[in-house]
């Protein structure tokens, strides 16, 4: 079956989640090693009677000379306090430890799972009672409680299993509950209700499948905890005297003079058994978690890849005469990942931003807009690398700067308004504090010599907040106390803190309502006029930028589709993609017109078409588009376009001219 899949990628059958899971699992070394270690010990335990050199379950006559014999040919790992073979004890002890671990964990996981799901799903009073009870059980130290209960009852295996199981469910209940809550709040549960599904159906088909992975990971950890608890109980002397678990072996050896007899083997071997099993479970659990929740992969402080400078030569558009603030020349960016050829995220993008200019950067999601903007300030994630091009700002090439020089340009020269202001602001620091931090970072004169803050700093923060229309007394508030629109304003105030010349606004209004969006746009436009800022406005919505931009760069699949001044883009676009985008825009003046849409989807960066990246969706594509990548052409007066159609047009025109001249 796998063969069929690999040979026919176009087949509509896709691998089941289990198969996909196994494929990722196989690649996780930690999980694989854990599984192997666990399998080995489970096999040894199951086949203990066959593999053990001695049958330790039968009573045999022991003489003093047999006790604590060091490892030898007859007893590979020596003998214990009763003169029995330690290796054989070890195999049989594995049975007891594993049985207790598995069964106790089973009880815990069932109780915890049911409580968590019931509490999370039904909520209200049921949840209150169950979770209060869980909280109580969670704070009561469990080993002492186990000790008390086992000490008061008979220490036999069944009792121990039940005591460990009945006291070990609290973390499971908490984890399952919070996962259930998270799943329950997701829209597909609401959708299931909307189609008329009852609680049973929803729990079985929608909650359980999404809680299960977490429950499995948790169950593995609960097993290891149960095994540790059993061994601790046995060691304290509360184990089942008839069942020789590893803990019990240690108890006997420690209590009966192994130490003074120097019989290290009797102490080390059973302990290593416990470590082996617990470590295998921990590795497996940890690996599984990574497989199921693959998020902890990269972070923003990992060292980035060095930029590679390359040949320059950039087109220029925008208001004539104004000085160029930011000159981006032939920037290409690749993403690298293990074992794959690099993804060409950005190829040869150039633009020139002049003083006071507002440039719109437009394209669908996933076409590389944010990547390009992050690259300007060298903020790309660790997998991304600038492989060609230059970014000239204030006479310096940003791609050639070191970290310290970059830190100087960041925010003071070029600042960024990020997309989701909720996530872009630190939740545990006040808004005012975060704005002040930016100022302090770049202007040492604000640093107060005496303890306490420079009053000028507070004034500056208040001034910035006032600039974006936030009352200054709100500066002591935390981001979660702001509304969405206010957070975006605060983000703008922060971006202006160090009087930057260039501000990059990365989809600052995407998640906002139309009215708030209009407010933010108006604010940005006003600020630009008052402070003479140059702004790059990133958006997927052509309509948003039409009213305030000077120039527009339309990107598609990481390349410049069309770049021109705003009037040209909207009134005489040449690239089919720009035209299609414009047609997709609802026009209030012609509501009866049918909306056009662009069929298909932007290309995936790891499987780019060989020719023009837009060719598969282009209504005017011809053979050449599918085979050959078009290059950037300049039309009259700063109108740039990457499309084969231009050449065809030009040829036709020059042919026309030729025929005319003849």
């Amino acid at each position, binding site marked *: 079956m796998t063969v069929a899949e690999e040979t026919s990628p176009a087949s509509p059958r896709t691998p089941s989640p289990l198969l996909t899971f196994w494929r990722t699992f196989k690649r996780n070394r930690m999980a694989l090693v854990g599984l192997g270690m666990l399998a080995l010990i489970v096999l040894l335990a199951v086949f203990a009677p066959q593999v053990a050199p001695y049958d330790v379950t039968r009573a045999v006559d022991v003489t003093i000379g047999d006790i604590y014999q060091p490892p030898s040919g007859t007893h590979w790992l020596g003998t214990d306090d009763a003169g029995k073979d330690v290796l054989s004890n070890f195999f049989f002890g594995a049975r007891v430890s594993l049985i207790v671990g598995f069964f106790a964990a089973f009880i815990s996981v069932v109780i915890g799972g049911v409580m968590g799901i019931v509490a999370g799903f039904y909520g209200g009073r049921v949840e209150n009672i169950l979770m209060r009870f869980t909280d109580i059980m969670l704070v009561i130290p469990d080993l002492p409680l186990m000790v008390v209960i086992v000490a008061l009852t008979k220490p036999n295996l069944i009792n121990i299993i039940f005591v460990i199981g009945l006291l070990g469910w609290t973390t499971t209940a908490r984890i399952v509950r919070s996962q259930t809550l998270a799943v329950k709040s997701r829209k597909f549960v609401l959708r299931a209700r909307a189609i008329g599904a009852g609680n049973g159906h929803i729990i079985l088909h929608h909650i359980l499948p999404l809680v299960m992975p977490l429950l499995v990971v948790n169950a593995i950890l609960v097993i290891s905890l149960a095994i540790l608890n059993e061994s601790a109980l046995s060691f304290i002397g509360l184990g089942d005297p008839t069942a020789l678990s590893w803990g019990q072996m240690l108890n006997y050896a420690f209590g009966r003079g192994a130490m003074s007899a120097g019989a290290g083997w009797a102490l080390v071997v059973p302990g290593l058994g416990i470590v082996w099993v617990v470590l295998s479970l921990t590795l497996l659990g940890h690996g599984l978690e990574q497989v199921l929740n693959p998020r902890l992969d990269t972070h923003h402080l990992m060292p980035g890849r060095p930029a590679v400078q390359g040949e320059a030569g950039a087109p220029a558009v925008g208001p004539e005469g104004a000085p160029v603030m930011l000159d981006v020349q032939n920037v290409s960016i690749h993403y690298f990942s293990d074992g794959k050829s690099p993804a060409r995220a950005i190829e040869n993008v150039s633009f020139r931003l002049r003083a006071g200019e507002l440039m719109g950067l437009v394209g669908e999601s996933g076409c590389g807009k944010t990547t390009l903007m992050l690259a300007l300030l060298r903020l790309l994630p660790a997998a991304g690398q600038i492989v060609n091009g230059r970014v000239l700002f204030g006479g310096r090439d940003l791609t050639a700067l070191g970290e310290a020089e970059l830190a100087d340009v960041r925010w003071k020269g070029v600042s960024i308004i990020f997309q989701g202001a909720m996530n872009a602001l630190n939740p545990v*620091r006040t808004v005012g504090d975060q704005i002040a931090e930016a100022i302090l970072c770049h202007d040492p004169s604000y640093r107060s010599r005496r303890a306490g803050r420079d009053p000028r700093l507070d004034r500056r923060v208040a001034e910035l907040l006032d600039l974006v229309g936030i009352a200054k007394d709100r500066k002591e508030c935390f981001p979660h106390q702001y509304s969405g629109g206010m957070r975006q304003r605060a983000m703008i105030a922060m971006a202006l803190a160090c009087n930057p010349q260039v501000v990059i606004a990365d989809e600052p209004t995407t998640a906002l309502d139309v009215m708030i969006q209009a407010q933010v746009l108006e604010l940005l436009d006003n600020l630009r006029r008052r402070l003479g800022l140059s702004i790059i406005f990133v958006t997927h919505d052509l309509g948003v930028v039409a009213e305030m931009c000077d120039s527009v760069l339309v990107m598609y699949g990481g390349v410049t589709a069309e770049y021109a001044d705003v009037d040209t883009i909207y009134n005489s676009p040449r690239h089919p993609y720009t035209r299609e985008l414009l047609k997709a825009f609802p026009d209030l003046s012609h509501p009866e017109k049918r909306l056009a849409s662009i069929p298909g989807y932007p290309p995936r960066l790891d499987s780019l078409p060989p020719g023009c990246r837009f060719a598969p969706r282009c209504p005017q594509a011809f053979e050449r588009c599918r085979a050959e990548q078009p290059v950037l052409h300049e039309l009259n007066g700063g109108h740039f376009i990457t499309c084969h159609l231009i050449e065809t047009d030009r040829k036709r025109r020059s042919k026309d001219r030729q025929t005319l001249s003849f």
Partner: protein
Amino acid sequence: MKRTQYLLKRLGWSVFTIAFVLVLNFFLFRVLPGDPARAGVHDPRLKQEAVEAIRVRFGLDKPVINCFESLNPVRFGSCDVNPLETQFFIYVRNLFKGDLGISYHTNRPVAEILAERLWNTILLIGLGQILSIFLGVALGIFAAWKARTAIDYGALLTSLLAWSLPTFWLGIILLFWGSAHGLPIAGKATPGTSSWPLMQQWGDVLRHMLMPTLTYTIVYLGEYTLIMRSSLLDVLAEDYILTAKAKGLNTFQILKDHALKNAMLPLVTVIAINLGFTVAGVLQIEAVFSWPGLGGAIYESVLRRDYPILQGAFLLIAVAVILANLIADLTYSYLDPRVQSE
């Protein structure tokens, strides 16, 4: 305003939990079989007078609880008795007087024995906790910062291994190793040192603490490293870290001002939740090293079946953990501004 409310709520909750533990502690020792006092009552060999004497001595002649007819439809307990004359009330009253009963073994008041030992346990936990948190946090930060390098994988594997060690077994191994290197391995002080100068006495105690504390530190170091690492990795992938970087802050400033506080938040909760498990570890360490703390008391009383001490020690440990949890909760509310607005 909201903060006070939160504080009161947590305080009330802790009081309720302590009350629950009191009740649990009372019933455990009356419902489950095993207490020699009651076992003695049922011993057929004893004469009627002797049985009566035992009953009176341990207060078993009194009704267990009042049934509180109006609240209790199943009429559990004895009705028509003075609630002040029930075993439960006497138990609670004695608790408030600080009376935890008399040890079967030494005939000394349990409260007195435990009071001596409480400090030893606090000393051990305190030192071990500080060391393991410090080292664990530092190692976790380092691993997360150097994510996906050999340092990170090394730290990860080491902590997983440390986590997998059974506390008592690690104790035994260190005990073995320590005794081979001439370190004191049992008790809190060398016998006969009470006449020594104070500084020397302290030095002696510290030498005795070395191995137990090392055991404790290794066992919990792994867990704190793991939590700090994953929590910091999460935080470092957040957008506001990118904002901080875009602002021009250097790596050190970002770690210090933006990442650490946020990443420590989950750790505070874990430390609180862990206190229960910590006690489990201390119990084992004290048993191995004959450290005269509460855990040692539990170990000894299990061997001697000295139930009053067991009961008292459990109660004391539970209350201490609950209070420590309360402190952790309050710390959390202080650290995370989002808590108060919930």
